[in-house]
């Protein structure tokens, strides 16, 4: 039925876990199927890039975009789906903040390639590396060109909403589907553009069932140093570096419930400019020492500072990566040919998508300029025109 809203889902540099999380909707997936016309979902159904290219601009009502931007094909699809979609959702940690693959921004591309193609089991005396275009037998074999850095979706194109999580919990995906469905029926309004959907506004600590008492940590301990993890006491109080204090709630605090620390996959809580900075603040506040030497000793317990604080969010952090990788990317860019596709991209922003309030039904590709946060009162929520007539 053509009157049904059109839905797309895509994976760029992703693991597929987001698709699995959506498939785990089970019976609710049938609801999605009856409510939406799924026009593009490579994980599940046959549709080609060319089919998407042939669609009119803004003809997809909502696109769930998973995965980071690691190569030129990912980037092309980001632009393509932005142009074709009324609402573009950064779905899951990779698209919204870079996720674990964002840790690659601590390394240069050469280091990444060497680790793969010059390691101990690789038999490669000639130092062969995959190349974007390889001539053989008079034809050319092409593969996408790796980008020097992993970028988040909103660093490449403007994003309307974010659904956090690695992967987003299936129950929260149901909530989002319901909300969008209602908005399309005209029985609910969507929150302002730039909002986070399918998650709370506080932190994992607020939904964690563990008991919290003292606020002083005498020593951080690694899991290999702890024989028994107390099943009810706050993990941070037990000295386990738990990212709960800086991480958005919404997952149900599943990991702490399983005696594993929160690793931060739901990203920053509301109003946080830089996830790692917020977590550093939280950890520094509970260190039980006033003397520099003693503070150093306690902080030695955090084995991998940049990994601890930016495990999922490095690519979306204020600095975005390690110095050498950033430097190499910069130099690489300086030599990029003028007029390369990258030259036409809208600018990414520091921090998260600022709220603004365009009417989604007039959102077209020409509107893709990031907007400053308005200084006035709260912007009105975007509205979707009900599809297929009045509310059903």
């Amino acid at each position, binding site marked *: 039925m053509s009157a049904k809203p059109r839905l797309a889902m*895509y994976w760029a540099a992703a693991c597929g876990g987001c698709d699995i999380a959506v498939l785990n909707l089970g019976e609710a997936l049938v609801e999605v199927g009856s409510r939406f016309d799924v026009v593009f979902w490579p994980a599940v159904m046959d549709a080609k890039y060319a089919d998407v290219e042939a669609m009119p601009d803004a003809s997809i009502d909502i696109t769930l975009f998973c995965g980071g931007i690691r190569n030129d094909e990912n980037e092309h699809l980001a632009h393509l789906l932005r142009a074709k979609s009324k609402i573009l959702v950064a779905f899951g940690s990779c698209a919204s903040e870079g996720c674990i693959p964002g840790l690659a921004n601590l390394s240069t591309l050469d280091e*990444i390639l060497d680790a793969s193609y010059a390691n101990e089991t690789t038999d490669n005396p000639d130092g*062969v590396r*995959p190349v974007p275009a390889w001539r053989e037998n008079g034809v050319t074999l092409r593969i996408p060109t790796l980008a020097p850095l992993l970028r988040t979706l909103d660093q490449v194109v403007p994003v309307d909403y974010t659904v956090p999580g690695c992967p987003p919990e299936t129950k929260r995906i149901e909530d989002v589907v319901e909300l969008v469905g209602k908005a399309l029926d005209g029985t609910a309004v969507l929150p302002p553009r730039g909002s986070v959907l399918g998650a709370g506004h506080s932190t994992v600590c607020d939904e964690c069932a563990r008991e919290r008492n003292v606020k002083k940590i005498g020593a951080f301990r690694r899991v290999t140093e702890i024989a028994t993890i107390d099943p009810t006491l706050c993990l941070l109080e037990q000295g386990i570096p738990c990212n709960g204090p800086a991480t958005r709630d919404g997952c149900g605090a599943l990991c702490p419930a399983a*005696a594993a620390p929160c690793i931060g996959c739901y990203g920053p809580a509301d109003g946080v400019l830089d996830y790692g900075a917020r977590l550093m603040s939280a950890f520094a506040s509970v260190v039980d020492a006033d003397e520099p030497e003693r503070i150093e000793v306690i902080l030695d317990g955090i084995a991998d500072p940049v990994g601890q604080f930016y495990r999922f969010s490095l690519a979306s952090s204020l600095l975005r990566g390690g110095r050498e990788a950033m430097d190499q990317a910069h130099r690489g860019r300086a030599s990029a040919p003028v007029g390369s596709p990258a030259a036409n991209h809208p600018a990414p922003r520091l921090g998260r998508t600022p709220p603004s309030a365009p009417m989604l039904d007039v959102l077209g590709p020409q509107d893709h300029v990031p907007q400053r946060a308005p200084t006035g009162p709260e912007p009105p929520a975007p509205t979707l025109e009900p599809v297929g007539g009045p509310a059903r």
Partner: protein
Amino acid sequence: MTAQLTIDPITRLEGHGKIEIFLDDSGEVARTAFQVPELRGFERFCVGRPVEEMPTLTARICGVCPEAHHMAAAKAADAVYGMDPPRTAKLLRELLYSAFYVADHTTHFYALSGPDFLVGPDAPVEDRNLLGVIRKVGMDVGGKVIEARRRGHAIIETIGGRKVHPCTSVPGGMTKGITEAERGAIETSGRWMVDFAAFSLDLWDAAIMANPEYVEMIRGDAYAHETYYMGMVDESGKVAFYDGRVRVVAPDGEMLGEYAPAEYGEWIAERVEPWTYLKFPYLKKVGWKGFVDGKDSGVYVAMPLARLNVADGMATPRAQEAYERFYATLAPAGPDGRKRLVHQRLAAHWARLVELMQAAEKVVELATDPEITSPDIRALPTQVPSEGVGTVEAPRGTLTHHYRTDERGILTSVNLIVGTTNNHAPIAMSIERAARSVIHGGEVVGQGLLNRVEMAFRAYDPCFGCATHALPGQMPLEVVIRDSDGNVVDDLRQHC
């Protein structure tokens, strides 16, 4: 004129794989290339991370089989510290892993590849999916498939903390155990899964083995490659998923050897080609001879069929019965009584069901172990961390994680040989054989190529983009034939 065929992209691998076919001057297939266009760099950026984080970090390599990476990483991390986790911890990990096998093999058989047979290879593509299976063999099948997946994921969540990307395996054991109530629920699910596996094996008999045409297709040589096989076996030489030694068997059934995971470097080497990001592992002792089969070529296969071929049998009774039937039907032993191998790739689907039974029986066996609810689930390190290898059988092949760390347990090197990667060369060969059989004089004979390539490819259950598994399952392809100037000569397309 050199012509080039592109099958691009492969749906459910879109952005994650494509096939190129070259024709020579006379229009015959010169060679094919299967390309994987992605690299995320885990082997590099895990360096510098604490080794205890690897089970959660590497789970993000694949959202379809995070459990496999979680387990391989946990085992490698155990080895880095020279730790042997308490028995209960190992039972819990294996229980989680067996439940994962049930869910994963179910998805593959019913949604991805099984429909080729259950609905029929000649059925319209739009029927060759789970919905088609339901139409053909009954409504309750769909419900059973959803329930098998649901029960599998519930067990994974109970033990692993989350449905996708589990979080409870750590060096030396587990962060938490299970309660008696949880155990009971798992046992109930396990028994249901055994019934489901038996139902699936019966379905195979009734729907496929009873049809001589299908039997001929499975037994025919169109999809056969005489390669080496790799798989993990337990101390009795039986098929093992979570732990054991890795056995390699030659195409003629002769054993090349068995190795402990830590010795993998003496056995496996990887070749780099400039036209794909994925490497091609091969047997170091035999050597790389190109994309060819036979005893002189180091190309090997690792997947359900390979595991059955290398093992002396299954580790559980009902799976053993199914295993015996499998070989009696497809490769009866000769007068010398020696086991003969099954080289026909399409038999992998049956092998997968044999494994489904073992995994289901394992769930029951482990859930009823008197020690499964013991609180003794953690060991602490007694030695300075240095180096470790962890290997499990992922559903798609032998998965190896190899770590080196400094004295604080911070990673200094990471090497990963991922399940599907093992089969990269054989998949390329199967695609080439399919292409050769249907392309002559520069022309493709009908839609044949699409079906042939599709089935050849699917038998391996490939997971390049990590998520070829999905519901409902089809593998529609597009073949574009271009002349040397890049003009499209022909365009064949198969829709779902």
